[in-house]
């Protein structure tokens, strides 16, 4: 995995790893953290993580700078992401989470746009086809992980633009 990831300037700024007591400063700090988490996960194609992993990951642990974001502060960052719709807890204990660099609604929109553009309304697709089919090779949602895809389709379902169905070897979706 080529680590061509570009760290933002905050990553080399020691105060970034201390939760700031000044409210306005903290707002900026948390915004920067949220942005970093999403771009990091996007590049590394990481759709889910445990809190333990996160603590030790270079994301929250800058070894060179000798600074780590303490776990309580990591929790605060994750909560911010959840509020924004980019994170979902996968268990009651909040030990592992799904991270979506694009919110499910946004993915849903992109998928539906493609469906409409290609005149495939009223068609049925398997989940696999959507994310791994040749037709979608050039689409952004190509290669999307199943968990995120499902949530994207659920969002469309809410809007009555799609329906998730069960088919012989798994799940599929019908678009309206």
């Amino acid at each position: 995995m080529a680590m061509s990831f570009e760290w933002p300037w905050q990553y080399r700024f020691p105060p970034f790893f201390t939760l700031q007591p000044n409210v306005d400063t903290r707002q900026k700090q948390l915004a920067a953290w949220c942005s970093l988490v999403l771009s990091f996960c996007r590049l590394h194609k990481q759709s889910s993580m445990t809190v333990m992993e996160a603590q030790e990951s270079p994301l929250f642990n800058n070894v060179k700078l000798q600074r780590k974001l303490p776990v309580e502060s990591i929790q605060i960052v994750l909560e911010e992401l959840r509020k924004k719709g980019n994170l979902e807890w996968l268990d009651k204990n909040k030990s592992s989470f799904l991270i979506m660099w694009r919110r499910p609604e946004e993915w849903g929109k992109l998928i539906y746009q493609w469906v409409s553009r290609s005149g495939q309304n009223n068609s049925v697709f398997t989940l696999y086809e959507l994310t791994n089919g040749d037709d979608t090779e050039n689409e952004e949602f190509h290669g999307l992980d199943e968990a995120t895809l499902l949530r994207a389709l659920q969002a469309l379902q809410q809007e009555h633009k799609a329906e998730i169905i069960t088919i012989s070897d798994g799940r599929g979706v019908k678009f309206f």
Partner: protein
Amino acid sequence: MDRFVWTSGLLEINETLVIQQRGVRIYDGEEKIKFDAGTLLLSTHRLIWRDQKNHECCMAVPLAQVVFIEEQAAGIGKSAKIVVHLHPAPANKEPGPFQSSRNSYIKLSFKEHGQIEFYRRLSEEMTQRRWETMPAPQSFQASRGPQPGRIRAVGIVGIERKLEEKRKETDKNISEAFEDLSKLMVKAKDMVELSKSIANKIKDKQGDITEDETIRFKSYLLSMGIANPVTRETCGSGTQYHMQLAKQLAGILQAPLELLSPEDLVNACKMLEALKLPLRLRVFDSGVMVIELQSHKEEEMVASALETVSEKGSLTSEEFAKLVGMSVLLAKERLLLAEKMGHLCRDDSVEGLRFYPNLFMTQS
């Protein structure tokens, strides 16, 4: 250490050895002296110390001179000790190693252990006071005042001393503080006289307590930080007393009072601004209170603090204090204020607390 006398170390008739211990060092108060390695002997009448290297060097102090004793537990790199508080040397004392000493206590350091047992035996001897019932040569009997050539009746003296010892035993374990307490008592003597007289007057319903006495009494109590019991009102701020005090504080070079309770000081300071004095009391968020000049503008100071921090990249409170030449406490308050105003941000790690310019706000 001026209570010790040279001795041959031989025991007298009626004097018996109780316990002895090698490897004992003597301190004059807190100071180390040359008597660093000796054998300490306890007899029924005296404490004797003999130099381990030079047996000719031998000194003793009568147990009758001992006011009370304390134990000091051993610590890291420190031996256990016994602290021996002594009466002043009598005028007719025989020659000893020190002519004079400013300390009224010595310490015995047990470098080769044995402190526990020695202390136990010494305590026993102090309780039993066998020297009183087994007369030994007169020089062993200490006298608190000059009593040349007269052996006093043991009974009365014994009782007297027991009362004295009991009184001082209640102040056990206040070694040096005991000395301060004596000084305080001397100063408060006047107040004690006055309060006795008032108490008597109240008791005997005899005569009126004059207004002057009342005021004096109240101000004594206030200066000791005790709320006014006569009228049951607490001092608070705004009383005549505090106003006067505030005015005096403003001329801070005058030192009018010797004893001033912290509460009085704070109450007086609260009045500074109201009395239009050139100083004022400022309370920081953390609760720290400072007195500053009216002309001082802390907010302006913050701007210059930011400059200083920016120049150096980052600073701790200590570093900043040193650079600017102020106390660490005030330096910290200034940096915290700058952080509150959004000019600085913090880096809190095992390396300590550092302040940086707030790039979160200034950089995109």
